[in-house]
Structure formats: C-alpha cells, structure tokens
C-alpha cells in the first residue's frame, strides 16, 4: 500500500499541526486538533512495529512460562494484531501470577526466574515506548 499508512499519518499530522490548527481560533478545538496530530504521530510509530512487538513478547512469555511448567495454550490464530493481542493478554495474565509466585519464594531458581521476568518487562517496556517531537 503506497503511501504506507504510517507515512501518511505523519504527513496528515504535519498538516494538522502546521496548517490547520494555526488557522483555527484559539481554544478547545485548536488544542484538540493539535492533540489529534500527536496521537497520529504515535499511531504511525505503532503501525510499523505492532505485530513484531507482540510476537516477540508472546514468544518470550511462552518461553518463561513453559520452563516453569505452566500451561501456555495455543499460539495466536494468525499474525493479525487483534489475534496477537488476545494471546498477549492471556500470557500476560499468567505471567503476573508466576511473577507473584516467584517473589514469594527465596530459592536460587526463583531468584533467577524473577530476574528473567524483570528483564523481560524492561525490554518489553522499551520496545513499547513511544516518542514525540520536541516542540
């Protein structure tokens, strides 16, 4: 699809910020138009990476849960973002339970597992971070 959706969202955001909002009367509508532009910039970032981020997260969570002997269920039905989200939510719920369990135990295996979970959360948060232009 040309132009790609993310490219056009960035173009549209630029038009909103530089051409449309400045020509609106100051106030709520002008502010909303500018905020919409920011949301479009964020959506453009998410568009390109959404499936890859979720697929990576799901693989990592599956691996952590499976090595702890937990049932991980069927993988996502497809690589569509909604299907990956459904799988992601199911795995994340199990991860919360596993994390709470390992925190409550003090063995070396638990400490290593906790470190692995924290490492996963850190990398997941970094991958999901969104960036804004500095005005």
């Amino acid at each position, binding site marked *: 699809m040309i132009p790609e959706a993310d490219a056009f969202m960035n173009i549209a955001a630029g038009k909103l910020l530089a051409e449309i909002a400045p020509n609106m*009367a*100051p*106030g*709520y509508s*002008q*502010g*909303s138009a500018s*905020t*919409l532009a*920011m*949301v479009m910039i*964020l*959506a453009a970032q*998410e568009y390109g990476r959404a499936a890859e981020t979720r697929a990576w997260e799901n693989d990592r969570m599956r691996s952590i849960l499976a090595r702890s002997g937990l049932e991980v269920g069927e993988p996502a039905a497809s690589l569509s973002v909604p299907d990956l*989200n459904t799988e*992601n*939510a199911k795995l*994340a*719920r199990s*991860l*919360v339970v596993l*994390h*709470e369990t390992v*925190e409550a135990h003090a063995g070396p295996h638990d400490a290593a597992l906790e470190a692995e979970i*924290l*490492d996963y*959360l*850190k990398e*997941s*948060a*970094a991958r*999901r*971070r*969104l960036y*804004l*232009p*500095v*005005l």
Partner: protein
Amino acid sequence: MSVSDPVLADRIAAYLKATQGRETKVVGLQRIHGGASRETYRVKLEEGGAARGFILRRDQTSALIETERSVEFAAYRAFHGTKVPVPEPLALEQDESWLERPFFIMEEIENAAPASVLQGEPYGSNAAKVGAQFFGTLGEIAKADPKALGLDWDAPAPDVCWKRELARWETVIDEDEREPQPIARAAIRWMKRNPPPPAAKVGVVHGDYRTGNFLFNSDGDVRAILDWEMAHLGDPLEDLGWALDPLWAHHNPERPGGMCSKAEAIGHWEKASGLKVDPVALVWWEMFASLKGLGIWISAAAEVQDGKNTDPVNAFSGWYCLAYHNQIIANRLAEGVR
C-alpha cells in the same frame, strides 16, 4: 473572543442574575483545551459598561478520575491570599439545573499561561527562577496547617498515608484495566513489600502538582497553582515525588520540571517547608508517582476504549504517558529500585 455556545452563555447570565443579582451579558465564551476531569471555559462578562473575565469549571459527563468539585473549590478558598498563589474562588454551584452539571467559577489570571509537556525549554532563561518558585511554593503547601486553613478533610495517621494512597490507585487500576498490566502489578507488590517510613508530617497534598498545572508569565513569575481536584491530606512527599517525575521534565530527566537539578529542587522544597527529605521515603514516593501515573493513564485508555470520553487527550495519555511510565517503573524494578 466570541461566544462559542450561546445557550450556555445565556444560562450563565441567568445564573449570575438569579444568585447574585448581577445584570450581566456574556460577551465571550470559549472552552479551554486540557483538563480531563472538568470542562474549563474562559468567560467574558459585560457588567455596567465594564468588562470582567472569569473561569468556569464544569463537571464532565464522564470524568477520567472521579473527583469532588467541592474539594477543589475548598482548596482554592483555603490558599487564596496566602503565599501559595491561586485564583480567587467566586462561587460553587452543586445544583445541576443551572448548567446541567455542577460547576464553580473563579477569577481569571490574565497575561499568564501554562507550559506544555511537549515543549523542550518552556521557561527559557527563567528556568531557575521558575524552579525556585515552583518547588518553593510546593514547600509552602507542605508547611501549611490544614486546620488553620479550614480544611477539615480526613487526615490519615502518618504511618498509613502510603497505604491509603496505594490502595486508592490499586483500586483504580483494578477497575479500569482493559488488558493485563504486569508492570503495574509488580510495582504495587514491591511497594507493599517495601513501605516507606511514616510521614514526617500529615499535610495538604495538591495531588497533581506538575508542569501544565500552573501559570507563569513572561518574566518567569509563577502566578497561579491550578487543578486541585485531587487534593487531600497525606504525606507531603507524595507531591514532591510527583513533581520530580521524569514525565514532567520536558524531555530532560536530569532537570525535574524542566527547571533545575533534582538537588536544587529538593533544596527549594526543604527551605520553604521546614521539612527534611528522607531519601528512603522519597524513593518510595517517586515509585508511587509513576504508579499513580499508570492509574491515570489506564483510566484514560479505558474512557476511550469504552466510548465514554473520546477526547484525544485521553488517547494520548493512554498511549504515550502509559508507555512512558511503564518504562520508568520497569527500569527501576530491574535495577532493584534505588
């Protein structure tokens, strides 16, 4: 300024005539952008040939975080005329028949504006001056005696301030999460396992003291502290942790609020408040600040997802701010929270 909503303008004039006997005409009415808990309007009146402006804050049909407008109004009334600059509160109306929803009105502060969190250097060469006032004023709020100010809000014991606030925001997350939040849950458990020391003082907590919630002028004078809707009594370090949060640092976490170094900020606060910051307690309250942020952003995302309040600022918060605070917390947890 034009009248953007003539029906609302007529209702405001009718209210002022009926309740205050004032013969006024609303010649300007404009909704101001921002503020997810209340609709905020700038109102211009013509009264006896003279022009006067005020701010109207009306409840939303669906609020991001449920707050009592009477709490916000009481805070303005308590601090007006003190070292903490606030607009003069003029009227609180709980009767929904006037403007469909409860509201209050207050003085308009002219020739001053808030900073946007998107700006890189909102204060320019006045950054240090603004920082001294911003963190100093927060110290004044911490120093204040709630009883002397007439604030009879429920006061927690010093050793349960943290517990009450954490429970409040855990409940918000429980109710509003629309997808699992493993980072928020890990943070909550860490905070329960590592409680802070008791509050050195139970005082007034503004609840949302940050960039964007105060007005300053081009000379770098802080003219008004706004948005007191989450005010309560508690540990004053709660506000300090929130004000220091990297999200409000204008893209430079080394300069809290985009104003000064963290050490300088704490110095201004300690000097004004007469309190000493316990570093262990501050670590906890900084963690709490980011978790409270998650609570607000999770609620914002839910408002949009549920179709209750689709203001784009809620989508922005649910995406950008949520991802930002998730990373702050995940990094702290991975480092053992220092």
